[in-house]
C-alpha cells in the first residue's frame, strides 16, 4: 500500500522514459533474434510480433494510475450487484440503520443543548440563583428588595451578587412605535454573569438610582435590525415608554438572560436603595472559589428565617414560602430534564433495537453465503481480498443508511420544533448538530463494518466445498436478539400508550365552561394609559364598539382567561373568614380573582348557581362580587352567601351577589382553586387601576361569543381596535386554543414517545420478518421432505407462525415486567391513569402480537408454497 503511494509521487516522466527503454530493449532483442535466423527486415518483424506498442504503453500507464481505485470500483460494483440480487436484505438493513442513525442524531442534537451544553457565561457552573419558592406569589424564585439589599456577598460565601427584575413589555418610539421587551437589572448584573458589552459600556451604580440619568443598552438583534448595526448609535437618544434615554452600549450577540426570556433593551431597574421594600427581585450570585451551594444555603437560612418572623404566621402558613438555592443550570433545565431524559431513553431503546436488527440480518446473510465464501477461498481468493470486499459492502450500506438517516434526522428535528412547547425554549432552537451527525455516522460505519466482517470470518477457514457442513444449532443467536427487540418495543409501546391515555383524559376534562365559538383578543396598553380617566375611557369605548358589531351574542372584558392559572390571587386568610366557619384546611391556601365585565359568565357559558350575574347597575355602586361554588362552600358552608359582605384586605368591601359554578383555573390536571370575580366599574376604584402590567387594568382580554365564523369576528374587532388605538398590538385567538395550550406539553411527550414506539415496532417487525425468512430458507429441504410426506401447506405455515409467537411471548414475558418497572419514571407526566394500568399493558401486548403476525405472514406463506419436488431435486 505504501509502495503504491510512493509510486504516485514518483516522477511520472522517469517512469515514461523507463518504460520506453524497456520496450525498446525488447524490440531490439527480438530483432537480433530474427537477424540470427536470417529473417528479412528484422525490425519490422519484431514490431509486428510485439503488437500495438502504443496500446501496451497505455495499458501500463493505466496500471500505474488507478489499480487500487479500479479494485475498489470492482468491489463496489460487486457489492451493488449483490444488493440488487437480495433487495429485501438491502432495504431492510439500510432502513434499519437509517432509523437508528436518524433518531439518535435528532435526539442528541436536541438533548445536547438541553442537558449537556453549559450556559453561555464564563465559569457558568458557579452561578447560582437565590430565592423564595412560593408559587402563588410569583412563578420564579424571588426575594424582597428589602431583604436583598443588606445581603453581603462575602458573608454568604459568594464572590459577587446581583439582582434583576425580569422582562416586561415596553414601547420604543424611534421612527415608528414598536412594542419591545425591556429587562431591568442592577448595575452589577453583567459583571456577575461575566459578560461585557460588545460596544460602549454598562451602566454604573449611580445610573441605577430612581433619579439617575436615563440610560439604556440595546440587545444585539435590536441594534442590527432597528439601528443598522452602526457604531454611531452610542450616545444617541431613544424614547422608551415615553421616557427619553441615552444609549450607552450594545450587549454581546447571543446573550441569554438567566431565565432564557427574550429581550430587546436592558434598563437599570432603578430601585431606591432604602425604599420599595416589598418589590420582588430575582437574585443571582457567583460562588466564591471553594464555596458551595450548601455553604450559601446555611448562610442564607438565618436571614430567611429572620425575614419570616416579620410576616404574620397565618400568611406564612398560607403561602408556604421555602428558601431555594440552586445552580442556574439546574434552575433552567429542571423542568425540561424529565422530557429530555425521556427523549434520550427512547432514542437509546430505538438504537439498541436497530443495531440488534442489523446484526441479525447480517448474520443471516453471512450464514446463507458461507458456501460462496468457501468456494472462493478454495479457488484461491485471499482472506484480505474477501475481507476487503465485505468491508466495502458494509461501507456502501452505511453510506446509504447515512444519507437516509440524515434526511430522517432533519425531518424529526423539524417535527420536534413544531411540537415543542414554548416552555422549552432551547428545544425550539435545536438544529442538526453537525458534530453529532458526524459522530453518529462514524459510530454507525465502524459498527456496520465490524458487523459486516466479523461474523463471516469463521467461514473463511472452511474445510470443504459444500456438502459436509451441517447447521448444528437451529437458530443460534438470532432469536435472542429478536426477543430483546420485542421486550424493548413492549416498553416503548406501553409508555406511549400511557401518555396517549393521559392526553385523552386531559382533553376530556370538563372545564366548567362552554368555550366553543368564543374569540379572544388580548392586549397590553402602554404607558400612555397611565392616566385613570384615559384608561376608563378606552375600555368604555371598547365595550361600546364591540357591542355594535352585528352578530355577536355576548362579550366581556377580563384581565385573565381560564383555564390557565396566572390570575391575581390573595391569601384566603385575607378575606377575614366572614362566615365564621373553620375547616380542616384552616386558613391555608389562596383565592384567585379576576376583574370582569357583566357579560363574562354568559360569554364563557359559566352557569350561575345562586343569585345572579353582574348587571350594569352594579357598575356604579360599591364593589359587587361573585364567588365560585368552592369558595362559597368554604366560606359559608350550606348557608346562602347572597347579600353577605366581607372585606378584602383593607381596600375593598365586597358584597356577594351570586355564586358561579367552578371553572378549571389551574390548568386542566389540577382541581380548580377557589375563585372570586370582581366587577370592572365605571369609576376608577381602589389602587388596582393603574399599576404596571400584569397588575392594574392595562393588561386585558376581550372575549366575544358569536355563532359567526371566527374570521368575521376577528376582522370586525381588528377594525374597531385600529380605530381606538392604531398602534396597539392585539393578539387574536379563540378559547379552544386557550384550552389547547394546556395540552401542548403532554401532547408533546406523548407524540415523542409514540413516534419512538412506532419506529421500534417497525424495526421489530422487520427483524422478525428477516429472521423468519432466513429460517424458512435454511429449512427448505426439511420443509420439502415434510410436504412430500403428506403435510399440508397450512400445517407448515402454522408451524412457523407458532415459532414467531413463541419468540414474541418470551419477549413479552420480559417486556411486561420491564414496563411495569420503568413506567414509574413517567408517573409525573400521567393524568388519571396508573403507570400499571392493565388495559394499556394488554393493548401493548396485543399490538406486538399482531405486529409479529403481520411480519411473519409473508415468509410463512413462502414456506407453505415451497414445491417439494423442486427442493428435493436441487439439493
Amino acid at each position, binding site marked *: 500500500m505504501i509502495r503504491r503511494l510512493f509510486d504516485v509521487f514518483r516522477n511520472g516522466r522517469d517512469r515514461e522514459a*523507463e518504460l520506453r*527503454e524497456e520496450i525498446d530493449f*525488447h524490440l531490439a532483442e527480438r530483432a537480433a*533474434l530474427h537477424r540470427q535466423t536470417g529473417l528479412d527486415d528484422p525490425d519490422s518483424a519484431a514490431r509486428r510480433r510485439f503488437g500495438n506498442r502504443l496500446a501496451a504503453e497505455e495499458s*501500463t500507464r493505466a*496500471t500505474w494510475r488507478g*489499480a487500487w481505485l479500479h479494485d475498489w470500483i470492482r468491489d463496489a460494483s460487486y457489492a451493488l450487484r449483490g444488493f440488487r440480487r437480495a433487495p429485501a436484505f438491502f432495504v431492510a438493513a439500510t432502513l434499519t440503520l437509517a432509523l437508528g442513525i436518524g433518531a439518535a442524531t435528532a435526539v442528541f442534537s436536541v438533548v445536547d443543548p438541553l442537558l449537556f451544553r453549559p450556559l453561555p457565561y464564563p465559569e457558568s457552573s458557579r452561578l447560582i440563583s437565590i430565592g423564595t419558592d412560593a408559587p402563588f406569589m410569583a412563578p420564579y424564585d424571588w426575594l424582597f428588595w428589602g431583604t436583598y439589599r443588606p445581603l453581603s456577598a462575602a458573608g454568604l460565601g459568594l464572590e459577587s451578587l446581583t439582582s434583576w427584575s425580569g422582562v416586561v413589555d415596553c414601547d420604543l418610539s424611534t421612527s415608528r412605535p414598536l412594542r419591545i421587551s425591556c429587562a431591568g437589572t442592577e448595575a452589577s448584573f453583567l459583571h456577575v454573569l461575566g459578560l461585557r458589552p460588545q460596544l460602549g459600556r454598562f451602566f454604573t451604580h449611580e445610573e441605577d438610582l430612581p433619579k439617575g440619568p436615563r440610560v439604556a443598552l440595546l440587545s444585539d438583534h435590536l441594534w442590527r435590525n432597528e439601528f443598522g448595526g452602526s457604531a454611531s448609535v452610542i450616545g444617541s437618544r431613544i424614547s422608551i415608554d415615553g421616557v427619553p434615554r441615552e444609549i450607552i452600549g450594545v450587549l454581546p450577540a447571543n446573550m441569554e438572560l438567566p431565565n432564557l426570556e427574550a429581550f430587546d433593551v436592558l434598563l437599570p431597574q432603578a430601585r431606591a436603595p432604602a425604599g420599595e421594600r416589598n418589590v420582588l427581585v430575582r437574585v443571582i450570585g457567583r460562588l466564591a472559589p471553594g464555596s458551595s451551594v450548601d455553604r450559601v444555603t446555611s448562610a442564607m437560612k438565618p436571614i430567611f428565617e429572620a425575614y419570616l418572623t416579620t410576616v404574620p404566621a397565618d400568611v406564612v402558613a398560607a403561602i408556604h414560602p421555602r428558601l431555594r438555592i440552586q445552580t442556574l443550570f439546574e434552575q433552567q433545565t429542571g423542568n425540561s430534564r424529565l422530557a429530555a431524559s425521556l427523549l434520550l431513553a427512547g432514542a437509546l431503546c430505538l438504537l439498541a433495537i436497530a443495531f440488534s436488527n442489523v446484526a441479525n440480518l447480517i448474520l443471516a446473510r453471512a450464514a446463507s453465503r458461507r458456501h460462496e465464501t468457501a468456494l472462493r477461498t478454495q479457488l*484461491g481468493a485471499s482472506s484480505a*481480498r474477501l475481507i476487503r470486499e465485505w468491508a466495502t459492502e458494509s461501507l456502501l450500506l452505511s453510506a446509504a443508511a447515512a444519507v437516509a438517516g440524515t434526511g430522517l434526522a432533519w425531518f424529526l428535528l423539524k417535527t420536534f420544533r413544531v411540537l415543542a412547547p414554548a416552555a422549552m425554549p432551547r428545544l425550539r432552537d435545536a438544529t442538526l448538530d453537525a458534530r453529532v451527525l458526524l459522530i453518529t455516522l462514524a459510530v454507525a460505519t465502524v459498527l456496520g463494518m465490524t458487523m459486516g466482517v466479523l461474523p463471516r470470518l469463521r467461514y473463511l477457514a472452511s474445510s470443504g466445498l459444500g456438502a459436509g457442513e451441517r447447521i448444528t444449532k437451529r437458530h443460534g443467536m438470532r432469536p435472542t436478539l429478536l426477543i430483546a427487540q420485542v421486550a424493548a418495543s413492549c416498553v416503548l409501546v406501553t409508555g406511549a400508550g400511557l401518555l396517549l391515555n393521559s392526553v385523552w383524559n386531559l382533553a376530556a376534562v370538563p372545564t366548567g365552561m362552554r368555550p366553543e365559538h368564543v374569540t379572544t383578543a388580548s392586549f397590553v396598553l402602554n404607558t400612555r394609559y397611565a392616566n385613570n380617566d384615559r384608561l376608563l375611557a378606552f375600555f368604555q369605548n371598547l365595550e361600546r364598539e364591540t357591542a355594535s358589531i352585528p352578530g355577536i351574542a355576548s362579550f366581556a372584558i377580563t384581565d385573565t382567561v381560564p383555564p390557565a392559572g396566572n390570575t391575581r390571587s390573595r391569601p384566603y386568610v385575607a378575606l377575614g373568614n366572614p362566615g365564621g366557619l373553620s375547616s380542616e384546611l384552616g386558613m391555608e391556601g389562596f383565592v384567585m380573582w379576576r376583574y370582569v365585565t357583566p357579560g363574562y359568565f354568559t360569554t364563557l357559558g359559566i352557569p350561575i348557581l345562586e343569585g345572579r350575574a353582574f348587571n350594569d347597575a352594579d357598575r356604579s355602586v360599591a364593589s359587587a362580587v361573585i364567588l365560585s361554588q368552592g369558595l362559597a362552600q368554604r366560606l359559608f358552608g350550606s348557608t346562602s352567601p347572597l347579600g353577605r359582605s366581607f372585606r378584602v384586605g383593607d381596600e375593598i368591601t365586597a358584597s356577594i351577589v351570586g355564586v358561579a359554578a367552578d371553572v378549571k383555573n389551574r390548568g386542566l390536571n389540577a382541581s380548580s382553586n377557589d375563585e372570586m370575580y370582581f366587577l370592572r366599574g365605571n369609576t376608577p376604584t381602589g389602587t388596582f387601576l393603574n399599576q404596571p402590567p400584569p397588575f392594574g387594568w392595562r393588561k386585558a382580554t376581550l372575549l366575544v361569543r358569536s355563532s359567526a365564523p371566527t374570521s368575521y369576528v376577528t376582522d370586525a374587532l381588528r377594525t374597531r381596535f385600529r380605530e381606538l388605538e392604531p398602534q396597539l398590538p392585539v393578539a387574536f385567538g379563540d378559547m379552544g386554543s386557550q384550552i389547547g395550550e394546556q395540552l401542548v406539553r403532554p401532547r408533546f411527550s406523548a407524540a415523542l414517545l409514540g413516534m419512538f414506539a412506532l419506529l421500534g415496532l417497525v424495526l421489530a417487525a422487520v427483524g422478525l420478518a428477516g429472521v423468519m425468512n432466513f429460517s424458512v430458507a435454511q429449512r427448505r429441504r426439511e420443509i420439502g421432505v415434510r410436504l412430500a410426506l403428506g403435510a399440508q401447506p397450512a400445517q407448515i405455515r402454522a408451524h412457523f407462525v407458532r415459532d414467531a409467537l413463541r419468540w414474541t411471548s418470551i419477549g413479552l414475558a420480559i417486556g411486561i415486567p420491564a414496563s411495569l418497572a420503568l413506567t414509574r419514571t413517567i408517573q409525573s407526566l400521567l393524568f388519571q391513569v396508573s403507570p400499571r394500568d392493565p388495559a394499556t399493558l394488554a393493548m401493548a401486548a396485543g399490538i406486538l402480537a399482531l405486529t409479529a403476525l403481520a411480519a411473519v405472514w409473508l415468509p410463512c406463506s413462502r414456506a407453505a408454497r415451497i414445491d417439494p419436488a423442486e427442493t428435493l431435486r436441487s439439493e
Partner: protein
Amino acid sequence: MLSLCQECGLDTLALAPYPSVLGNKTMSESLQDALEMVIFKVLSAGPNHGFGIALHIEQTSKGMLKAEEGSLYPALHRLEKRGLIKADWKVTESGRRARFYSLTATGRKRLAQAEKSWSNLSRGIQLLWEAK
C-alpha cells in the same frame, strides 16, 4: 493474453476455468491471470526481463503457448504494483541495460497457494474427463 497455437489444435478447456490468483473475475480477467500465473512460474526459476520471460514461455511450453507481447508489460507492471514482483535495472550479458523482475516473498507465497489450487482443479477435471 495467452493465445493457443492454432495449428496445435488444443482445447481451450485447460485454460478457461483457470484458478484465479487474485479473486473472482470476469472471463478476460481470468485470462489475464493466466498470464500472471505463467509469469510467476517463469520468475520462480530466477530473475528475468520482459523479453526473456516471453522467450522462456515459448521455449518451455514447446511452442504450445505464445505470450502476446503487448499485454506482457501491463501485466508485469500490475504485478509490480501489487508487490508480488520487484524490478531492478541491470546490465545484461550483451552489455545493454534491461529491467529485471524477480519474485518478492509475498509473490512466492501467492505462487505456492495458486499452484496447489491449480493442481487440485486440474486433477479433478482430469478425473472427470477420464470417468466419462
